[in-house]
């Protein structure tokens, strides 16, 4: 019995022309606005994340669909996808990572500058997926620390966008001192990254 999916056939009316992000909490007055530096930097960073799509397999095609006009990732500020790790903030690992590819992922992660975030898109990047074999890395968190996991095989573009929104939450609320702190250093030590 088919559920009545008709919204794809009928055009949806436009509700508002432009949407703008909310202001952070703070004291406002005539010509000044006082808030925490953390909130402002977080606000600026989270709405202009530059992703590096590390697309290996099928999830890469779903990423291409997410970048397309239907599920537009550019509205979240990720218009400029770069392929150079030196210029990007978010490493989106999409697809199966084989053992042969593991050192390459680590190398790309090391080349990124702080602050950097990692998103594992797809079941294969999260945990090896359906490929429990001798040649597949069972999840990229064997080699690099991961911030957000997006499960799915492949995850729908809405799920990838949800993952990006979670990253935005993390970026917006991150403390400016986190990357120099003891806990972060210990995390990187556990992966063998100096």
């Amino acid at each position, binding site marked *: 019995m088919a559920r009545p999916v008709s919204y794809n056939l009928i055009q949806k009316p436009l509700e508002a022309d432009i949407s703008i992000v909310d202001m952070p909490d703070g004291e406002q007055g005539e010509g000044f606005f006082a808030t925490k530096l953390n909130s402002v930097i977080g606000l600026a960073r989270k709405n202009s994340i530059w992703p590096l799509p590390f697309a290996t397999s099928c999830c890469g095609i779903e990423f291409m669909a997410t970048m397309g006009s239907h599920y537009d990732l550019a509205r979240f500020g990720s218009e400029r996808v770069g392929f150079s790790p030196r210029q990007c903030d978010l490493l989106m690992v999409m697809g199966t990572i084989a*053992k042969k590819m593991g050192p390459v992922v680590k190398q790309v992660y090391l080349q990124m500058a702080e602050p950097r975030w990692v998103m594992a898109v797809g079941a294969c990047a999260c945990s090896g997926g359906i490929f429990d*074999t*001798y*040649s597949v890395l069972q999840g990229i968190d064997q080699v690099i620390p991961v911030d957000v996991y997006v499960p799915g095989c492949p995850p729908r573009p809405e799920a990838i966008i949800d993952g990006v929104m979670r990253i935005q939450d993390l970026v917006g609320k991150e403390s400016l001192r986190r990357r120099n702190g003891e806990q972060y250093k210990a995390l990187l030590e556990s992966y063998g990254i100096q």
Partner: protein
Amino acid sequence: MLTNDIIKQRLTEKFAEQVSNFEEPYGMLTFEAPVELNLKVLNFLYDDEELKFRFMTDLTAVHFPNDKGRELAVVYHLHNLSDNIRIRFKVFTAIGKPDVYTATGLFSTANWMERETYDFYGINFVGHPNLKRILNVDEMDYFPMRKEFPLEDSTRIDKDDEMFGRGGTLGFGTETARDRQEVISENEKHDETGRPIV
């Protein structure tokens, strides 16, 4: 009109008893030849004006651990594009010394196909320009598609074999390499992780 019978007849005329085991599973003529003659047969099928098998569709291998002396089979699929006939040709070789002459001189497509077969089964293609591993990591020291090796990486710690229905004490009927020790002969002894003991 080229038919399977004509091909069989031409082959038996040229090679007498050396080509054997003619079968036609699902309409495709399949036959076997000794491993030393594989190039001669391929050349004959290529050059002959009536047979014209000038397109190599596939080259792969199969492992039969129970047929002693004939464990590894190399299977060639050839295609005659003008008459639209396909044919399958097998050679069998022993696992102790799996040497097969390379077909790269005749078909350039055999280059990577033979590398893949070497990578998975360890068949040494004599005369191949670049016989090294293609799909697996270069440091791998065993040939993974052979029947005695397990599918999973035995060093992984995050997946519980028992809950995944493999081995363990619940016994779902799927065996691991450990359980199949009895079919492995002396020259293929392996330790409990599946790696060969040298």
